[in-house]
């Protein structure tokens, strides 16, 4: 991992927050339909459920429940962790409704369907400006509370 003091920038803008406090959880940027109240990730102006135009911007919970997962026995390319032999992939249900498919942090035997997961940021690499380029992933919740 790079030094905590490095500035963090998203690998792609518009999908998640980067809290100033490195120990705080990031949040996914979602939408809520003003007509039917359905929540979505990522942001979208038109509701996929009732087709109304004009969803409002919201931030989504950073914790959810693991719906399913797998562990891929191939290295994750472009990751700086050369020691990483494989990686978890999972689908996490947020309390607002959206199901998020993402890479999971942890080893082959660290996951169980139904467990609480928490969003975190992973540093992919440093850019030319010396900033940490980060992406989101989920890890098992440390305190078990959703």
């Amino acid at each position, binding site marked *: 991992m790079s030094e905590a003091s490095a500035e963090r920038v998203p690998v792609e803008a518009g999908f998640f927050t980067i809290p100033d406090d490195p120990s705080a959880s990031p949040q996914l940027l979602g939408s809520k339909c003003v007509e039917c109240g359905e929540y979505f990730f990522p942001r979208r102006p038109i509701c996929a459920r009732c087709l109304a135009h004009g969803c409002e911007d919201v931030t989504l919970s950073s914790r959810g429940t693991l719906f399913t997962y797998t562990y*891929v026995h*191939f290295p994750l390319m472009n990751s700086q962790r050369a020691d990483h032999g494989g990686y978890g992939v999972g689908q996490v249900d947020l309390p607002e409704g959206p199901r998020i498919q993402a890479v999971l942090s942890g080893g082959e035997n660290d996951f169980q*369907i139904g467990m609480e997961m928490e969003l975190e940021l992973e540093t992919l690499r440093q850019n030319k400006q010396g900033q940490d380029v980060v992406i989101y992933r989920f890890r098992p919740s440390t305190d078990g509370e959703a």
Partner: protein
Amino acid sequence: MGLQEVAVLGVGTTRFGVYPDKSNIVLAREAGVAALKDAGISFAEVGEAFVGYLFSTPMTGIRAMKEFGLTGLPATHVENASATGLVAFRDAAWAVASGRCDIAMALGFDKMSEAMRGGGRGQGRDSIDNVILPAAYFSLWGMRRMHERGTKPEHFAQIAAKNWNHGALNPFSHRQPDHEVTVEQVLKSRKISEPVTAMMTCPVDDGAACAIVARKDLARKLQPDRPLVGVRASVLQTETYSRGHIFMGPVVGPPSMTRDTGKQAYEEAGLGPEDMDLVLVHDAFANEELEYYELLGFAAEGEAEKLLEEGHTKLGGRIPFNTDGGLIARGHPGGPTGLAQIHELVVQLRGEAGRRQVDGARAGMAQLVGGGSVCAITILQRD
């Protein structure tokens, strides 16, 4: 005139495999010429063409069509990921059904071996919508099913072994094992992503396949001595929203997409699962096939494992699935995959499938999903 007045006039396919010395154009010509020969017509009689591929540059399909001669016919590119070939078939069938032409061609080709060379298998994460290994997202179905139903990896391995062994009976199959593949062998092969092992996945393939459809009355006149294989349904759906829908990352659509598309296909065909004699499905990863037993109505919810365990879905069983080896053995280049399924259905329904012939086969179904996502289903029936 409707789809019910359309018949398959001819089919052709290359054996799928890795062909470093053959271009897309050469593969497409081989499959197309085989289909024209099987149909017993000249390319001059083809009124419209639909060409599908995933891994080549724009207009490659139009260039491939020139191999058959320059007749000025309208040709349209089709791309719907793994379902491309079945979608090209649907368009060709409807071009005839709508009265736009009397004879239409659906052609698919691809060289996945070249597409894989640049990227490799693992996957950059330089965008949020990154590419995770394709096996992973269907493995997510498999892990969930094991959790909900107590399904064992042995079930998935049994499907893979069945399809490998079906491939041994198909001269067009990429994989033609010279011994009986066992459940143990499949389970012991390299781990890809839990619960999927290497032998539960389709190979990397090059190849081409082609189907020619025509007005039924014309087909009868051209081929008076051959059993007529009619098109009963050819449908396509995209994803339908329900809560928990996944929008981000590589997606294969909710499993319900296959149930909904199947329902539409049965309704349009006026047939049900009980009328099918064989079924071809998207077994890119073995655990998918188990889900499709239920989603397509061949087993009640939670009963797919029983259908498999009792041997009903292998050749000789009540409703054999993937009689040609499926994507796992026959192969899965991309664009031509659905047209290879059509080839198998037609050969089976004509009674020309040799050692893998399903006795008295009269109706069959081909299903593919395409990541992104779509589901395409075609039902054919012998008159």
